[in-house]
Protein backbone atom coordinates (compact mmCIF):
# COMPACT_ATOMS: atom_id res chain seq x y z
CA UNK A 1 0.00 0.00 0.00
CA UNK A 2 2.70 2.43 1.00
CA UNK A 3 4.81 1.75 -2.08
CA UNK A 4 1.77 2.03 -4.27
CA UNK A 5 0.91 5.34 -2.66
CA UNK A 6 4.39 6.75 -3.23
CA UNK A 7 4.35 5.55 -6.82
CA UNK A 8 1.01 7.21 -7.41
CA UNK A 9 2.28 10.42 -5.88
CA UNK A 10 5.41 10.50 -8.04
CA UNK A 11 3.36 9.75 -11.15
CA UNK A 12 0.95 12.53 -10.31
CA UNK A 13 3.69 15.09 -9.74
CA UNK A 14 5.43 14.04 -12.97
CA UNK A 15 2.14 14.37 -14.82
CA UNK A 16 1.62 17.86 -13.39
CA UNK A 17 5.17 18.89 -14.30
CA UNK A 18 4.82 17.64 -17.87
CA UNK A 19 1.28 18.90 -18.36
CA UNK A 20 2.19 22.11 -20.27
CA UNK A 21 4.06 20.12 -22.93
CA UNK A 22 0.85 18.62 -24.26
CA UNK A 23 -2.04 20.52 -22.68
CA UNK A 24 -3.74 23.54 -24.13
CA UNK A 25 -4.32 26.85 -22.45
CA UNK A 26 -7.76 25.88 -21.19
CA UNK A 27 -6.59 22.74 -19.41
CA UNK A 28 -3.80 24.70 -17.74
CA UNK A 29 -6.32 27.30 -16.64
CA UNK A 30 -8.49 24.55 -15.18
CA UNK A 31 -5.57 22.93 -13.40
CA UNK A 32 -4.54 26.24 -11.85
CA UNK A 33 -8.09 26.61 -10.54
CA UNK A 34 -7.99 23.08 -9.15
CA UNK A 35 -4.69 23.79 -7.39
CA UNK A 36 -6.05 27.01 -5.90
CA UNK A 37 -9.19 25.28 -4.65
CA UNK A 38 -7.08 22.41 -3.27
CA UNK A 39 -4.94 24.74 -1.18
CA UNK A 40 -8.06 26.58 -0.04
CA UNK A 41 -9.90 23.38 0.90
CA UNK A 42 -6.88 21.74 2.55
CA UNK A 43 -6.58 24.70 4.90
CA UNK A 44 -10.28 24.49 5.56
CA UNK A 45 -10.02 20.78 6.34
CA UNK A 46 -7.39 21.46 9.01
CA UNK A 47 -10.33 23.07 10.78
CA UNK A 48 -13.08 20.62 9.89
CA UNK A 49 -11.40 17.23 9.65
CA UNK A 50 -8.62 17.72 12.16
CA UNK A 51 -9.92 20.22 14.72
CA UNK A 52 -13.63 19.48 14.36
CA UNK A 53 -14.71 23.05 13.59
CA UNK A 54 -16.97 23.79 10.61
CA UNK A 55 -16.26 27.26 9.26
CA UNK A 56 -18.63 28.92 6.79
CA UNK A 57 -16.55 32.06 6.45
CA UNK A 58 -13.39 30.88 4.73
CA UNK A 59 -14.24 32.87 1.57
CA UNK A 60 -13.74 36.01 3.65
CA UNK A 61 -10.11 35.13 4.19
CA UNK A 62 -9.76 34.00 0.59
CA UNK A 63 -11.02 37.42 -0.51
CA UNK A 64 -8.70 39.17 1.97
CA UNK A 65 -5.82 37.37 0.28
CA UNK A 66 -7.10 38.17 -3.21
CA UNK A 67 -7.65 41.86 -2.49
CA UNK A 68 -4.32 42.24 -0.69
CA UNK A 69 -2.47 40.55 -3.51
CA UNK A 70 -4.35 42.60 -6.13
CA UNK A 71 -3.61 45.85 -4.31
CA UNK A 72 0.08 45.02 -4.04
CA UNK A 73 0.37 43.96 -7.68
CA UNK A 74 -1.24 47.20 -8.82
CA UNK A 75 1.52 49.13 -7.06
CA UNK A 76 4.53 46.82 -7.04
CA UNK A 77 4.67 44.32 -9.88
CA UNK A 78 6.14 41.33 -8.04
CA UNK A 79 4.29 38.05 -7.98
CA UNK A 80 6.00 36.69 -4.89
CA UNK A 81 5.28 39.85 -2.93
CA UNK A 82 1.61 39.55 -3.90
CA UNK A 83 1.45 35.98 -2.64
CA UNK A 84 3.16 36.88 0.64
CA UNK A 85 0.85 39.87 1.15
CA UNK A 86 -2.20 37.73 0.43
CA UNK A 87 -1.11 35.06 2.84
CA UNK A 88 -0.39 37.62 5.54
CA UNK A 89 -3.76 39.31 5.01
CA UNK A 90 -5.61 36.00 5.29
CA UNK A 91 -3.61 34.93 8.33
CA UNK A 92 -3.86 38.20 10.25
CA UNK A 93 -7.59 38.61 9.65
CA UNK A 94 -8.14 34.98 10.69
CA UNK A 95 -6.11 35.58 13.84
CA UNK A 96 -8.21 38.61 14.78
CA UNK A 97 -11.65 37.22 13.88
CA UNK A 98 -10.67 33.76 15.12
CA UNK A 99 -9.98 35.19 18.54
CA UNK A 100 -13.70 35.95 18.74
CA UNK A 101 -14.91 32.79 16.97
CA UNK A 102 -13.03 30.03 18.79
CA UNK A 103 -14.73 30.89 22.07
CA UNK A 104 -17.61 28.84 20.71
CA UNK A 105 -17.92 25.48 19.01
CA UNK A 106 -20.35 23.57 16.81
CA UNK A 107 -23.22 25.55 15.28
CA UNK A 108 -22.36 28.71 17.23
CA UNK A 109 -18.87 28.70 15.79
CA UNK A 110 -20.22 28.09 12.28
CA UNK A 111 -22.69 30.96 12.55
CA UNK A 112 -20.03 33.34 13.85
CA UNK A 113 -17.69 32.51 10.97
CA UNK A 114 -20.58 32.89 8.53
CA UNK A 115 -21.40 36.36 9.80
CA UNK A 116 -17.78 37.51 9.91
CA UNK A 117 -17.30 36.21 6.38
CA UNK A 118 -20.32 38.19 5.24
CA UNK A 119 -18.95 41.25 7.03
CA UNK A 120 -15.89 41.03 4.85
CA UNK A 121 -18.22 40.65 1.87
CA UNK A 122 -20.07 43.88 2.71
CA UNK A 123 -16.77 45.58 3.31
CA UNK A 124 -15.69 44.61 -0.19
CA UNK A 125 -18.94 46.04 -1.57
CA UNK A 126 -19.08 49.28 0.36
CA UNK A 127 -15.52 50.41 0.90
CA UNK A 128 -15.29 51.72 -2.63
CA UNK A 129 -12.11 53.76 -2.12
CA UNK A 130 -10.09 50.68 -1.32
CA UNK A 131 -11.87 47.76 -2.92
CA UNK A 132 -13.43 49.44 -5.93
CA UNK A 133 -16.91 48.46 -4.79
CA UNK A 134 -18.93 46.39 -7.26
CA UNK A 135 -16.39 47.13 -10.01
CA UNK A 136 -13.76 45.39 -7.95
CA UNK A 137 -10.08 45.82 -8.66
CA UNK A 138 -9.40 45.75 -12.36
CA UNK A 139 -6.35 45.64 -14.55
CA UNK A 140 -4.21 43.65 -12.17
CA UNK A 141 -1.09 42.67 -14.06
CA UNK A 142 0.35 39.20 -14.10
CA UNK A 143 3.58 40.57 -12.74
CA UNK A 144 6.88 38.81 -13.35
CA UNK A 145 8.34 36.52 -10.74
CA UNK A 146 11.24 38.46 -9.41
CA UNK A 147 14.04 37.92 -6.96
CA UNK A 148 15.89 41.22 -7.24
CA UNK A 149 19.35 40.91 -8.73
CA UNK A 150 19.08 37.15 -9.25
CA UNK A 151 16.33 36.28 -11.68
CA UNK A 152 13.22 37.55 -13.38
CA UNK A 153 10.71 35.27 -15.06
CA UNK A 154 8.05 36.63 -17.34
CA UNK A 155 4.69 35.30 -16.24
CA UNK A 156 2.61 36.27 -19.25
CA UNK A 157 2.65 32.83 -20.90
CA UNK A 158 0.12 30.59 -19.19
CA UNK A 159 2.70 27.77 -18.75
CA UNK A 160 4.94 29.97 -16.67
CA UNK A 161 2.18 31.06 -14.38
CA UNK A 162 1.03 27.46 -14.15
CA UNK A 163 4.47 26.43 -12.91
CA UNK A 164 4.47 29.23 -10.38
CA UNK A 165 1.11 28.13 -8.95
CA UNK A 166 2.15 24.48 -9.07
CA UNK A 167 5.36 25.02 -7.10
CA UNK A 168 3.70 27.25 -4.50
CA UNK A 169 0.84 24.79 -4.08
CA UNK A 170 3.11 21.77 -3.76
CA UNK A 171 5.20 23.51 -1.10
CA UNK A 172 2.05 24.56 0.77
CA UNK A 173 0.58 21.06 0.57
CA UNK A 174 3.83 19.47 1.72
CA UNK A 175 4.06 21.80 4.72
CA UNK A 176 0.46 21.08 5.68
CA UNK A 177 1.14 17.36 5.39
CA UNK A 178 3.97 17.74 7.87
CA UNK A 179 1.78 19.82 10.17
CA UNK A 180 -1.03 17.26 10.39
CA UNK A 181 1.48 14.53 11.23
CA UNK A 182 3.32 16.64 13.79
CA UNK A 183 2.60 16.76 17.53
CA UNK A 184 0.49 19.85 16.86
CA UNK A 185 -1.61 17.96 14.30
CA UNK A 186 -2.12 15.02 16.66
CA UNK A 187 -3.19 17.40 19.42
CA UNK A 188 -5.76 18.94 17.07
CA UNK A 189 -7.18 15.48 16.35
CA UNK A 190 -7.41 14.99 20.09
CA UNK A 191 -9.39 18.22 20.44
CA UNK A 192 -11.72 16.98 17.72
CA UNK A 193 -12.35 13.70 19.56
CA UNK A 194 -12.56 14.95 23.15
CA UNK A 195 -11.68 18.48 24.12
CA UNK A 196 -11.99 17.88 27.84
CA UNK A 197 -9.45 15.08 27.74
CA UNK A 198 -7.02 17.35 25.88
CA UNK A 199 -7.50 20.06 28.49
CA UNK A 200 -6.50 17.43 31.04
CA UNK A 201 -3.36 16.82 29.05
CA UNK A 202 -2.43 20.36 30.07
CA UNK A 203 -3.32 22.07 26.83
CA UNK A 204 -5.16 25.35 26.34
CA UNK A 205 -7.80 24.24 23.85
CA UNK A 206 -8.78 27.75 22.85
CA UNK A 207 -5.26 28.71 21.85
CA UNK A 208 -4.86 25.58 19.77
CA UNK A 209 -8.16 26.20 18.04
CA UNK A 210 -7.09 29.76 17.32
CA UNK A 211 -3.80 28.52 15.86
CA UNK A 212 -5.63 26.05 13.67
CA UNK A 213 -8.00 28.79 12.54
CA UNK A 214 -5.06 31.04 11.72
CA UNK A 215 -3.41 28.31 9.65
CA UNK A 216 -6.66 27.85 7.74
CA UNK A 217 -6.74 31.62 7.18
CA UNK A 218 -3.15 31.62 5.94
CA UNK A 219 -4.00 28.91 3.42
CA UNK A 220 -7.19 30.65 2.33
CA UNK A 221 -5.24 33.90 1.91
CA UNK A 222 -2.52 32.16 -0.08
CA UNK A 223 -5.09 30.51 -2.34
CA UNK A 224 -6.81 33.86 -2.80
CA UNK A 225 -3.58 35.61 -3.67
CA UNK A 226 -3.02 33.27 -6.62
CA UNK A 227 -6.27 34.24 -8.31
CA UNK A 228 -5.85 37.94 -9.27
CA UNK A 229 -2.84 37.41 -11.55
CA UNK A 230 -4.83 34.71 -13.33
CA UNK A 231 -8.10 36.62 -13.77
CA UNK A 232 -6.67 40.17 -13.71
CA UNK A 233 -9.62 41.22 -11.57
CA UNK A 234 -10.88 40.82 -8.02
CA UNK A 235 -14.60 41.23 -7.29
CA UNK A 236 -16.72 41.05 -4.12
CA UNK A 237 -18.46 37.70 -4.87
CA UNK A 238 -15.17 36.04 -3.88
CA UNK A 239 -16.09 36.83 -0.28
CA UNK A 240 -19.69 35.63 -0.55
CA UNK A 241 -20.77 32.68 1.56
CA UNK A 242 -21.57 30.65 -1.53
CA UNK A 243 -17.86 30.72 -2.19
CA UNK A 244 -17.28 29.54 1.40
CA UNK A 245 -19.42 26.54 0.52
CA UNK A 246 -16.92 25.38 -2.11
CA UNK A 247 -14.29 24.06 0.31
CA UNK A 248 -17.09 22.55 2.41
CA UNK A 249 -18.45 20.71 -0.61
CA UNK A 250 -15.18 19.45 -2.03
CA UNK A 251 -13.98 18.34 1.40
CA UNK A 252 -17.14 16.35 2.03
CA UNK A 253 -16.87 14.90 -1.46
CA UNK A 254 -13.26 13.81 -1.05
CA UNK A 255 -13.48 12.86 2.61
CA UNK A 256 -12.82 14.81 5.77
CA UNK A 257 -10.74 12.21 7.57
CA UNK A 258 -8.09 11.82 4.91
CA UNK A 259 -5.37 14.26 4.03
CA UNK A 260 -5.87 14.00 0.28
CA UNK A 261 -9.68 14.22 0.45
CA UNK A 262 -9.92 17.95 -0.35
CA UNK A 263 -7.56 17.57 -3.33
CA UNK A 264 -9.53 14.71 -4.85
CA UNK A 265 -12.72 16.65 -4.12
CA UNK A 266 -11.37 19.73 -5.93
CA UNK A 267 -10.51 17.70 -9.01
CA UNK A 268 -13.98 16.14 -9.05
CA UNK A 269 -15.56 19.54 -8.49
CA UNK A 270 -14.03 21.09 -11.60
CA UNK A 271 -14.46 17.94 -13.64
CA UNK A 272 -18.17 17.66 -12.92
CA UNK A 273 -18.71 21.38 -13.29
CA UNK A 274 -16.88 21.49 -16.61
CA UNK A 275 -18.95 18.69 -18.07
CA UNK A 276 -22.32 19.99 -16.89
CA UNK A 277 -21.70 23.58 -17.96
CA UNK A 278 -21.50 22.37 -21.56
CA UNK A 279 -25.10 21.23 -21.49
CA UNK A 280 -26.96 23.64 -19.29
CA UNK A 281 -26.56 27.03 -17.73
CA UNK A 282 -28.45 25.83 -14.66
CA UNK A 283 -25.45 23.78 -13.75
CA UNK A 284 -25.71 24.34 -10.00
CA UNK A 285 -28.93 22.29 -9.72
CA UNK A 286 -27.31 19.34 -11.43
CA UNK A 287 -24.09 19.80 -9.63
CA UNK A 288 -25.84 19.86 -6.26
CA UNK A 289 -27.75 16.69 -7.05
CA UNK A 290 -24.60 14.90 -8.14
CA UNK A 291 -22.72 15.96 -5.01
CA UNK A 292 -25.55 14.75 -2.77
CA UNK A 293 -25.61 11.47 -4.69
CA UNK A 294 -21.85 10.99 -4.40
CA UNK A 295 -21.74 11.89 -0.71
CA UNK A 296 -24.47 9.33 -0.03
CA UNK A 297 -22.74 6.58 -2.01
CA UNK A 298 -19.21 7.22 -0.84
CA UNK A 299 -19.68 7.31 2.89
CA UNK A 300 -16.77 9.17 4.43
CA UNK A 301 -15.66 10.45 1.05
CA UNK A 302 -14.32 9.17 -2.23
CA UNK A 303 -10.81 8.63 -0.89
CA UNK A 304 -11.93 6.47 2.04
CA UNK A 305 -14.11 4.49 -0.33
CA UNK A 306 -11.13 3.59 -2.47
CA UNK A 307 -8.60 2.97 0.30
CA UNK A 308 -10.92 0.96 2.52
CA UNK A 309 -13.29 -0.76 0.07
CA UNK A 310 -11.83 -0.99 -3.40
CA UNK A 311 -8.17 -1.44 -2.47
CA UNK A 312 -8.70 -4.46 -0.16
CA UNK A 313 -10.81 -6.06 -2.91
CA UNK A 314 -8.06 -5.55 -5.47
CA UNK A 315 -5.49 -6.91 -3.06
CA UNK A 316 -7.44 -10.11 -2.51
CA UNK A 317 -7.75 -10.90 -6.21
Amino acid sequence: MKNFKNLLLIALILFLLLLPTFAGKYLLYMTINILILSVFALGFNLLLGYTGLLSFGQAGFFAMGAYASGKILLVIPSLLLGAIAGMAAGGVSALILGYLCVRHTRIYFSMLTLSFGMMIYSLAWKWRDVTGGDDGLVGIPRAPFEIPGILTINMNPMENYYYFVLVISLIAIFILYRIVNSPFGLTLKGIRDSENRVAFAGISIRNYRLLSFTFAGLYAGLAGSLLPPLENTVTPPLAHWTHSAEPVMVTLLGGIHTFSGPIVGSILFYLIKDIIVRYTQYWLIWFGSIVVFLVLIFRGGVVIFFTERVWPLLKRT
Partner: protein
Amino acid sequence: MADLLRTEKLRKYFGVVSAADDIDLQIEEGVLTSIIGPNGAGKTTLINLLTGNILADSGKVFFCDENITYLPIHKRVKKGICRSFQIMNIFPKLTVLENLQIPILSFMNRSLRFIKPVYRHTDVNDRVEKLLKEVGLMDKRDLPAGTLSHGDQRLLEIGLAMAPDPRLLFLDEPTAGMNPVERVKILQNIRRLSRERQSTFVIVEHDMDIVFSLSDRIIVLHRGQILADGKPEEIQQNEDVRRVYLGEELFWDKL
Protein backbone atom coordinates in the same frame (compact mmCIF):
# COMPACT_ATOMS: atom_id res chain seq x y z
CA MET B 1 2.69 15.32 56.72
CA ALA B 2 2.13 18.40 54.60
CA ASP B 3 -1.17 18.89 52.85
CA LEU B 4 -1.01 18.45 49.12
CA LEU B 5 -4.41 19.98 48.58
CA ARG B 6 -6.56 22.02 50.89
CA THR B 7 -9.97 23.68 50.53
CA GLU B 8 -11.49 26.45 52.59
CA LYS B 9 -15.27 26.79 52.76
CA LEU B 10 -15.67 25.58 49.22
CA ARG B 11 -19.21 26.16 48.05
CA LYS B 12 -21.17 25.34 44.90
CA TYR B 13 -24.92 25.55 44.49
CA PHE B 14 -26.95 24.40 41.51
CA GLY B 15 -30.02 26.56 41.98
CA VAL B 16 -31.06 25.79 45.55
CA VAL B 17 -29.39 22.40 45.62
CA SER B 18 -26.14 22.41 47.51
CA ALA B 19 -23.59 20.28 45.75
CA ALA B 20 -20.75 21.53 47.91
CA ASP B 21 -21.63 23.26 51.13
CA ASP B 22 -18.65 24.98 52.79
CA ILE B 23 -16.32 22.04 52.43
CA ASP B 24 -13.08 22.15 54.40
CA LEU B 25 -10.87 19.34 53.26
CA GLN B 26 -7.22 18.36 53.34
CA ILE B 27 -5.63 15.73 51.19
CA GLU B 28 -2.28 14.44 52.35
CA GLU B 29 0.52 13.35 50.13
CA GLY B 30 0.93 9.61 49.74
CA VAL B 31 -2.35 8.65 51.42
CA LEU B 32 -4.72 6.76 49.15
CA THR B 33 -7.99 8.55 49.85
CA SER B 34 -11.48 7.49 48.81
CA ILE B 35 -14.55 9.67 48.58
CA ILE B 36 -17.87 7.88 49.01
CA GLY B 37 -21.46 8.90 49.52
CA PRO B 38 -24.96 8.16 48.33
CA ASN B 39 -26.11 9.27 44.88
CA GLY B 40 -26.26 13.03 44.61
CA ALA B 41 -23.96 13.58 47.58
CA GLY B 42 -21.71 15.85 45.53
CA LYS B 43 -18.76 13.53 44.94
CA THR B 44 -18.31 14.30 41.26
CA THR B 45 -19.01 17.99 41.87
CA LEU B 46 -16.24 18.05 44.43
CA ILE B 47 -13.79 16.54 41.94
CA ASN B 48 -14.98 18.94 39.26
CA LEU B 49 -14.33 21.85 41.59
CA LEU B 50 -10.87 20.62 42.52
CA THR B 51 -9.78 19.89 38.95
CA GLY B 52 -11.30 22.98 37.35
CA ASN B 53 -14.18 21.50 35.34
CA ILE B 54 -16.52 23.83 37.17
CA LEU B 55 -15.69 26.90 39.21
CA ALA B 56 -16.72 27.44 42.82
CA ASP B 57 -19.32 30.00 43.92
CA SER B 58 -17.13 30.88 46.87
CA GLY B 59 -14.33 29.48 48.96
CA LYS B 60 -10.76 28.64 48.06
CA VAL B 61 -8.71 25.73 46.81
CA PHE B 62 -5.01 25.53 47.60
CA PHE B 63 -2.56 23.19 45.92
CA CYS B 64 0.85 23.08 47.60
CA ASP B 65 -0.19 26.27 49.44
CA GLU B 66 -0.92 28.06 46.19
CA ASN B 67 -4.38 29.43 45.49
CA ILE B 68 -5.74 27.66 42.39
CA THR B 69 -9.46 28.35 42.87
CA TYR B 70 -9.91 30.07 39.53
CA LEU B 71 -7.12 28.52 37.51
CA PRO B 72 -8.20 26.97 34.17
CA ILE B 73 -7.92 23.19 33.74
CA HIS B 74 -4.79 23.11 31.64
CA LYS B 75 -2.83 25.22 34.12
CA ARG B 76 -3.86 22.96 37.00
CA VAL B 77 -2.63 19.98 35.01
CA LYS B 78 0.73 21.65 34.53
CA LYS B 79 0.92 22.15 38.29
CA GLY B 80 0.32 18.45 38.84
CA ILE B 81 -3.40 17.72 39.15
CA CYS B 82 -5.08 15.30 36.78
CA ARG B 83 -8.15 13.09 36.67
CA SER B 84 -10.07 10.36 34.92
CA PHE B 85 -13.76 10.54 34.17
CA GLN B 86 -16.78 8.55 35.26
CA ILE B 87 -18.16 8.67 31.73
CA MET B 88 -15.65 7.36 29.22
CA ASN B 89 -13.44 10.13 27.96
CA ILE B 90 -10.82 8.87 25.54
CA PHE B 91 -10.04 9.64 21.90
CA PRO B 92 -12.10 6.91 20.21
CA LYS B 93 -10.93 7.49 16.63
CA LEU B 94 -7.23 7.54 17.48
CA THR B 95 -5.13 4.47 18.19
CA VAL B 96 -4.17 3.56 21.75
CA LEU B 97 -0.66 4.75 21.00
CA GLU B 98 -1.83 8.12 19.70
CA ASN B 99 -4.15 8.48 22.68
CA LEU B 100 -1.21 8.36 25.05
CA GLN B 101 1.06 10.42 22.81
CA ILE B 102 -1.15 13.48 23.19
CA PRO B 103 -0.72 13.98 26.96
CA ILE B 104 2.93 12.89 26.92
CA LEU B 105 3.76 15.34 24.14
CA SER B 106 2.11 18.06 26.19
CA PHE B 107 3.92 16.95 29.33
CA MET B 108 7.27 17.15 27.54
CA ASN B 109 6.33 20.52 26.00
CA ARG B 110 6.34 19.24 22.43
CA SER B 111 2.74 19.94 21.47
CA LEU B 112 3.69 23.07 19.58
CA ARG B 113 6.11 21.40 17.20
CA PHE B 114 4.73 21.78 13.71
CA ILE B 115 7.06 20.04 11.31
CA LYS B 116 8.79 16.99 12.79
CA PRO B 117 6.47 13.95 12.64
CA VAL B 118 5.35 12.48 15.96
CA TYR B 119 7.08 9.15 15.42
CA ARG B 120 10.46 10.89 15.18
CA HIS B 121 10.16 12.30 18.71
CA THR B 122 11.86 9.21 20.10
CA ASP B 123 12.16 10.32 23.73
CA VAL B 124 8.41 10.95 23.77
CA ASN B 125 7.72 7.53 22.34
CA ASP B 126 9.95 5.86 24.91
CA ARG B 127 7.80 7.33 27.64
CA VAL B 128 4.62 6.33 25.84
CA GLU B 129 5.91 2.78 25.61
CA LYS B 130 6.68 2.70 29.31
CA LEU B 131 3.18 3.91 30.09
CA LEU B 132 1.67 1.35 27.70
CA LYS B 133 3.47 -1.37 29.64
CA GLU B 134 2.33 0.06 32.97
CA VAL B 135 -1.34 -0.07 32.07
CA GLY B 136 -0.92 -3.34 30.19
CA LEU B 137 -2.07 -2.28 26.75
CA MET B 138 1.17 -2.88 24.87
CA ASP B 139 -0.28 -5.51 22.55
CA LYS B 140 -3.23 -3.29 21.65
CA ARG B 141 -1.27 -0.17 20.86
CA ASP B 142 -2.24 0.05 17.19
CA LEU B 143 -5.97 -0.52 17.62
CA PRO B 144 -8.40 2.41 17.46
CA ALA B 145 -9.28 3.14 21.08
CA GLY B 146 -13.00 3.02 20.31
CA THR B 147 -12.77 -0.67 19.43
CA LEU B 148 -11.28 -1.77 22.77
CA SER B 149 -13.35 -3.63 25.34
CA HIS B 150 -14.91 -1.58 28.09
CA GLY B 151 -12.33 -2.72 30.62
CA ASP B 152 -9.42 -1.87 28.35
CA GLN B 153 -10.92 1.54 27.66
CA ARG B 154 -11.04 2.18 31.41
CA LEU B 155 -7.39 1.15 31.65
CA LEU B 156 -6.55 3.53 28.84
CA GLU B 157 -8.48 6.25 30.59
CA ILE B 158 -6.38 5.73 33.72
CA GLY B 159 -3.27 5.75 31.54
CA LEU B 160 -4.31 9.07 30.03
CA ALA B 161 -4.85 10.52 33.48
CA MET B 162 -1.44 9.30 34.66
CA ALA B 163 0.46 10.48 31.60
CA PRO B 164 1.30 14.00 32.85
CA ASP B 165 2.90 12.39 35.93
CA PRO B 166 0.52 14.21 38.29
CA ARG B 167 1.29 14.61 41.97
CA LEU B 168 -2.40 14.32 42.68
CA LEU B 169 -4.62 12.03 40.63
CA PHE B 170 -8.41 11.81 40.88
CA LEU B 171 -10.11 8.69 39.58
CA ASP B 172 -13.86 9.13 39.20
CA GLU B 173 -15.43 5.67 39.52
CA PRO B 174 -12.65 3.82 37.77
CA THR B 175 -14.58 0.55 37.82
CA ALA B 176 -17.97 1.85 36.69
CA GLY B 177 -19.81 -0.62 34.49
CA MET B 178 -17.17 -3.34 34.62
CA ASN B 179 -17.50 -7.04 35.06
CA PRO B 180 -15.88 -8.62 38.17
CA VAL B 181 -12.83 -9.89 36.29
CA GLU B 182 -12.06 -6.50 34.79
CA ARG B 183 -12.71 -4.90 38.15
CA VAL B 184 -10.07 -7.01 39.86
CA LYS B 185 -7.62 -6.20 37.08
CA ILE B 186 -8.21 -2.47 37.47
CA LEU B 187 -7.90 -2.72 41.24
CA GLN B 188 -4.60 -4.51 41.07
CA ASN B 189 -3.37 -1.91 38.66
CA ILE B 190 -4.43 0.98 40.86
CA ARG B 191 -2.84 -0.58 43.91
CA ARG B 192 0.39 -1.28 42.09
CA LEU B 193 0.53 2.13 40.45
CA SER B 194 -0.11 3.96 43.70
CA ARG B 195 2.85 2.13 45.20
CA GLU B 196 5.21 2.53 42.26
CA ARG B 197 4.37 6.10 41.37
CA GLN B 198 5.03 9.33 43.17
CA SER B 199 1.36 10.18 42.66
CA THR B 200 -1.26 10.49 45.35
CA PHE B 201 -4.51 8.82 44.34
CA VAL B 202 -7.98 10.04 45.26
CA ILE B 203 -10.74 7.66 44.23
CA VAL B 204 -14.47 8.18 43.98
CA GLU B 205 -16.23 4.85 44.19
CA HIS B 206 -19.61 3.25 44.58
CA ASP B 207 -18.31 -0.23 45.21
CA MET B 208 -17.73 -0.65 48.96
CA ASP B 209 -15.55 -3.73 48.62
CA ILE B 210 -13.10 -1.72 46.61
CA VAL B 211 -13.19 1.27 48.89
CA PHE B 212 -12.52 -0.65 52.06
CA SER B 213 -9.85 -2.91 50.65
CA LEU B 214 -7.94 -0.18 48.89
CA SER B 215 -8.04 3.02 50.90
CA ASP B 216 -5.91 4.43 53.68
CA ARG B 217 -8.50 7.05 54.37
CA ILE B 218 -12.20 7.47 53.56
CA ILE B 219 -14.22 10.65 53.28
CA VAL B 220 -18.00 10.30 53.35
CA LEU B 221 -20.01 13.02 51.64
CA HIS B 222 -23.67 13.67 52.20
CA ARG B 223 -25.67 16.52 50.67
CA GLY B 224 -22.58 18.50 49.89
CA GLN B 225 -21.07 18.18 53.32
CA ILE B 226 -18.43 15.99 54.87
CA LEU B 227 -20.23 13.52 57.08
CA ALA B 228 -17.29 11.48 58.23
CA ASP B 229 -13.58 11.30 57.61
CA GLY B 230 -11.17 8.66 58.83
CA LYS B 231 -9.57 5.26 58.47
CA PRO B 232 -11.71 2.48 56.94
CA GLU B 233 -12.26 0.83 60.36
CA GLU B 234 -13.48 4.08 61.87
CA ILE B 235 -15.89 4.68 59.02
CA GLN B 236 -17.33 1.20 59.40
CA GLN B 237 -18.20 1.91 63.02
CA ASN B 238 -19.63 5.35 62.33
CA GLU B 239 -23.33 5.59 63.17
CA ASP B 240 -23.99 8.66 60.99
CA VAL B 241 -22.64 6.91 57.97
CA ARG B 242 -24.82 3.90 58.64
CA ARG B 243 -27.87 6.10 58.85
CA VAL B 244 -27.11 7.77 55.53
CA TYR B 245 -26.78 4.42 53.88
CA LEU B 246 -30.12 3.30 55.33
CA GLY B 247 -31.57 0.59 53.20
CA GLU B 248 -28.16 -0.75 52.50
CA GLU B 249 -27.92 -2.15 56.01
CA LEU B 250 -27.68 -5.67 54.79
CA PHE B 251 -24.58 -4.70 52.99
CA TRP B 252 -23.07 -3.07 56.03
CA ASP B 253 -23.72 -6.09 58.18
CA LYS B 254 -21.86 -8.16 55.69
CA LEU B 255 -18.68 -6.19 56.22
